[in-house]
């Protein structure tokens, strides 16, 4: 049996007391704030105190314990004082939650979390046998979440988690606005939140979540995961017309537009749910789809929508055509009128992203459905070497060989739930099923492969009176992991990177896992995505600014990122438009069109993930963007009265007063770079010198006093003045270009 308890007193004392504190702190007087462990801190200059409690974290532990405890009857039966396992190192008490939590924390800390978890599935040896069934069972997962939370609670008082400051509320609000709405708020609004409370800041962030900008955030964020816009360029959309939907027009242009809107369909479903404050689960359980002006005719909705309008509707347009004749049901109809909508899952764009075959049998659809909506990567869940002997097993290995069933027992029932959607995506392709022709001809009268597990979820099978995909959707949203999946789904849109992988330092991995769990636990209460997004943006992770001490080893930090990420091409375009009123490319934004891929964008087909780091090619695009906009931005702003201007609020086109120029530079640092600098700081000193040098360079050039002397200046005002008699506009032009090619302009 294992060795004695080697946990030292200090650690054990700390663990016991911290766990006890977290359990008893419920109902305490702390204000609303960040959901991650550690201090709620809206003062970047204060030093967080070790061991400081967090109300929300204690709630997370309590919630996790309740979940885990409900599956631990067998554990409590043996692991009690005087019980069968009374001589082991794990003694629990079903009537004493605090005692039990301490025991779990202590065992996990001493012998390792995996040691404890492995015993629940009988590995490598457990006298009590395999109690939890598998490492993917709900019981196992609930206990794992609890242990992670307990470990992080222990670490909350250690320097690593609290060794950094967070940005000011105004900086967070500005970033939130840029991500969520595509606009940079006005300077007055931003600065008014400089000392806002967490509650006030969160309320302001929630207030951003409406309108077209927010809808774009939702759709772009969802597409970054689902890649549904693959349909715009891939060939999958062609089958839509060729096989199942009577064309509403022969115009190639119209077909391209229909394909484009088919790509938007799942994204519109998600946006519709979130913007109308419906439970997020509806993205899968919705018994409708979203149609546009171009798709409503194909779907036979009769809605006659206006351009740009999207509305809920039922798909009554799919024909089922076998060779030259139409399949007709008992009533003589050839169109499917009972299409079983299951939100995103039944859309053409989603299903065609993961095509199936006679042997794949919807397994790719199952794999990605679990990844997207449960946050569960089945390939990584059981990454282990398998032998060629197992691979070569021909006796239905996915049913019988343990090397294969470890994954297939979970995946294949979900695959079955997609059974009525054909490899070419159509519903009930033959009229009654979507089996491949060869199998159907040999196995008449069945609607799914008889040598596979029946359609279901976990140990449950789809009832005979239920539509399998709709039934699956319901099971998924009822799964505890649905909330975890939602957090992971939106993580990239908010933080600009994937969740950490196993190569990250252990402390960071565990802190992130705890944070995800805490966010999910809160989200699970009402499944309101807006609340979740606000919670994510209130976390210390999102707002992390600087290490409190420059000598602190990076490896001690439990958060690696700072409060900036590389802006997407769309966000950069929006930022520039917001700050200057101008768009590169005007009505055909260059950063979203011709330069999209060169600026690190994805095409959702061969490039599924946008770049998250700056490359040489991307920088050249950013330069081109700045050069194109810089001069026009200066001219446009100075054509307005000072009170109307976006940028140049402190100077006029002939101002040479040093103090005024420095004040203007301070404003530009805040407006353009979201940096708060002071008038005599090193940065402002350098920028002021740059202003002077640029001005002198312009004077040295000689010639006329027009701003476009010797250079290209795209004046967007068509007739506006290019005069620069004081040689002031020219250096401001250079300053704007300098700022638009600054890393803090491109990363925010």
């Amino acid at each position, binding site marked *: 049996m294992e060795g004695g308890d080697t946990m030292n007193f200090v650690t054990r004392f700390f663990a016991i007391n911290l766990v006890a504190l977290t359990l008893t702190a419920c109902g305490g007087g702390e204000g609303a704030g960040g959901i991650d462990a550690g201090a709620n801190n809206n003062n970047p200059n204060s030093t967080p105190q070790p061991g400081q409690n967090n109300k929300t974290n204690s709630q997370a532990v309590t919630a996790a314990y309740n979940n885990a405890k409900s599956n631990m009857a067998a554990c409590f039966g043996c692991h009690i004082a005087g019980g069968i396992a009374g001589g082991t190192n794990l003694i629990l008490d079903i009537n004493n939650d605090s005692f039990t939590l301490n025991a779990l924390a202590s065992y996990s800390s001493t012998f390792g979390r995996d040691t404890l978890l492995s015993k629940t599935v009988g590995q490598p040896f457990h006298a009590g046998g395999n109690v939890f069934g598998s490492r993917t069972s709900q019981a196992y997962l609930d206990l794992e979440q609890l242990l992670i939370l307990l470990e992080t609670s222990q670490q909350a008082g250690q320097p690593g988690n609290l060794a950094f400051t967070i940005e000011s509320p105004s900086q967070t609000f500005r970033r939130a606005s840029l991500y969520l709405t595509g606009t940079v708020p006005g300077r007055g609004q931003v600065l008014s939140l400089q000392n806002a409370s967490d509650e006030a800041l969160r309320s302001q962030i929630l207030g951003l979540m409406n309108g077209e900008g927010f809808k774009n955030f939702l759709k772009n964020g969802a597409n970054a995961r689902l890649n549904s816009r693959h349909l715009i360029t891939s060939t999958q959309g062609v089958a839509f017309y060729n096989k199942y939907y009577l064309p509403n027009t022969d115009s190639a242009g119209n077909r391209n537009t229909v394909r484009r809107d088919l790509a938007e369909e799942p994204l519109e479903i998600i946006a519709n749910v979130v913007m109308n404050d419906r439970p997020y689960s509806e993205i899968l359980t919705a018994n409708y789809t979203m149609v546009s002006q171009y798709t409503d005719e194909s779907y036979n909705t009769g809605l006659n929508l206006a351009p740009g309008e999207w509305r809920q509707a039922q798909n009554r347009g799919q024909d089922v055509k076998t060779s030259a004749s139409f399949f007709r049901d008992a009533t003589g109809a050839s169109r499917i009128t009972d299409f079983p909508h299951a939100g995103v899952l039944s859309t053409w764009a989603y299903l065609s992203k993961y095509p199936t075959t006679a042997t794949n049998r919807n397994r790719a659809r199952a794999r990605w459905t679990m990844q997207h909506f449960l946050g569960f990567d089945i390939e990584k869940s059981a990454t282990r070497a398998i032998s060629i002997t197992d691979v070569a097993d021909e006796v239905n290995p996915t049913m019988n060989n343990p090397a294969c069933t470890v994954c297939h027992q979970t995946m294949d029932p979900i695959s079955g739930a997609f059974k009525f959607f054909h490899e070419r995506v159509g519903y009930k392709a033959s009229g009654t099923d979507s089996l491949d022709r060869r199998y159907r001809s040999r196995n008449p009268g069945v609607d799914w492969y008889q040598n596979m597990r029946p359609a279901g979820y976990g140990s449950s099978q789809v009832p005979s009176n239920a539509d399998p995909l709709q039934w699956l959707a319901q099971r998924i949203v009822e799964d505890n992991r649905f909330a975890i999946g939602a957090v992971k789904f939106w993580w990239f849109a908010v933080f600009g990177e994937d969740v950490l992988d196993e190569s990250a330092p252990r402390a960071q991995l565990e802190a992130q896992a705890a944070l995800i769990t805490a966010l999910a636990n809160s989200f699970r209460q009402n499944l309101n995505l807006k609340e979740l997004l606000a919670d994510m943006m209130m976390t210390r992770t999102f707002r992390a600014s600087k290490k409190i001490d420059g*000598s602190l080893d990076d490896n001690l930090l439990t958060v690696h990122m700072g409060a900036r990420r590389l802006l997407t091409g769309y966000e950069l375009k929006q930022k520039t438009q917001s700050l200057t009123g101008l768009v590169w490319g005007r009505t055909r934004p260059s950063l979203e069109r011709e330069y999209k891929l060169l600026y690190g964008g994805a095409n959702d087909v061969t490039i599924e993930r946008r770049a998250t780091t700056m490359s040489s090619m991307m920088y050249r695009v950013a330069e081109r963007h700045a050069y194109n906009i810089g001069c026009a931005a200066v001219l446009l702003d100075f054509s307005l009265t000072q009170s109307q201007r976006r940028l140049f609020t402190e100077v006029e086109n002939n101002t040479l007063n040093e103090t005024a120029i420095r004040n203007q530079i301070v404003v530009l640092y805040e407006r353009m770079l979201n940096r708060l600098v002071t008038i005599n700081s090193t940065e402002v000193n350098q920028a002021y010198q740059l202003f002077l040098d640029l001005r002198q360079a312009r004077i040295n050039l000689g010639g006329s006093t027009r701003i476009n002397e010797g250079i290209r200046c795209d004046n967007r005002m068509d007739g506006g003045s290019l005069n620069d008699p004081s040689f002031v506009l020219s250096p401001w032009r250079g300053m704007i270009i300098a700022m638009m090619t600054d890393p803090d302009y491109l990363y925010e």
Partner: protein
Amino acid sequence: MTAATSLFASFPALLKANSDYQGKLVVTVFARGGWDPTSFCDPKMNAAGERIINNWAAANSIQTAGNINYAPFADNDAFFQAHFQKMLVINGIDVKSNGHSTGTLNNMTGIMKDGYPSIAALFAASNKSQQLMPWLAGTSRPNSGKLLVPSTMANRSELDRLKRLALPNRFRTGRTDVYLQNEELALLRQFRQTQGTARMNDAQQMPKQRRQYQDFLAATYSDGSFENFINLLETADTKGLNPNNRFFGQAASTMAAFKAGISLTADISVSGFDTHGTHDTRHASALTNLTTTVDLLWYMATQYNIEDRLVVVISSDFGRTNRYNDGNGKDHWSITSSIIMENNPSWGNRVVGTTDGAHFASKINFNNLQEDNASGTTIEPKHLMTAMRSYLNIETQPASLRFDLDVAAVPDFFNPALMT
């Protein structure tokens, strides 16, 4: 020196002084989806009374180019006859997985674990000096190990845009008007370097923030090599092949970048190999794309006089089953092959590793490379990766040591006197 202080440096000092790189140029060509070695470099005939492994074997026999056997399938004949002298074929590699993600990871990095770099990333990180885009990636999720930033491959179809990016300060290609005068450009660049470096060197920066500033400053470096790359891309002789083709275009872009000196390595991806249905037709097409792409690499390398520096590594997620399924497709099989190529190497025209008639991997003696199922060892991707690190002289570099593959012994792959 702690992690917090180890990165303190002025930006120029982060780069090596050598900008005239004349070392090796490494390209990995990945057959995405799981290729069928039994229809390529590890050909298998059908056995009497057993299920058919290959339909082509019904009427054809295994072909040979030098010491290398190949299948009479697709355009294999032209490829092997033209390039067998360059080749080291490694058969019987056990990937120990039949999952796409895991198999790809294992073959690209040598380990079934996230976070490790591919050989292309590792080599570029160990040898880069002032190249603009040291590592090109034609894949969606390149394995960087966070060592360096991959650059997307530019396609000739984007030539007009690329020309504008070659000289971003110039208003239009072919015109002389500019957005900034030279003196202004110089002032802005100096300002950006000064402020960017100061922020990067701020001891209180969070780790990711610091890396972002480093990546940014590296991205701002500019010399005339990008313009040279554009010119080469525009005028590239692609042997009559369509330079806008998504496979051939990667080859053209890679070679132009190598010749211009802006890149050291590239990861190229050729898709279409996951042939669960209608295997023969679809796999022949995919293999033809693969061999044409590799052939184009060598053709252009010769045109640019860099063929003696080029190293090509061809691999895939895994293999395909030794039988057809009900849809005339082949499913996943954890035994695969790889091919390493160089121009007239001493170790060329050789095969290491073997499989039996049903494409099960045989064990080999790592010292004499002879089949030894009693006491030998099965070749795995980690052996190949470790051997490549050694061959490319990067095995003792800090990045390689950081991403140790923990391999006790590797086959003597590059010993010209030995062959399985």
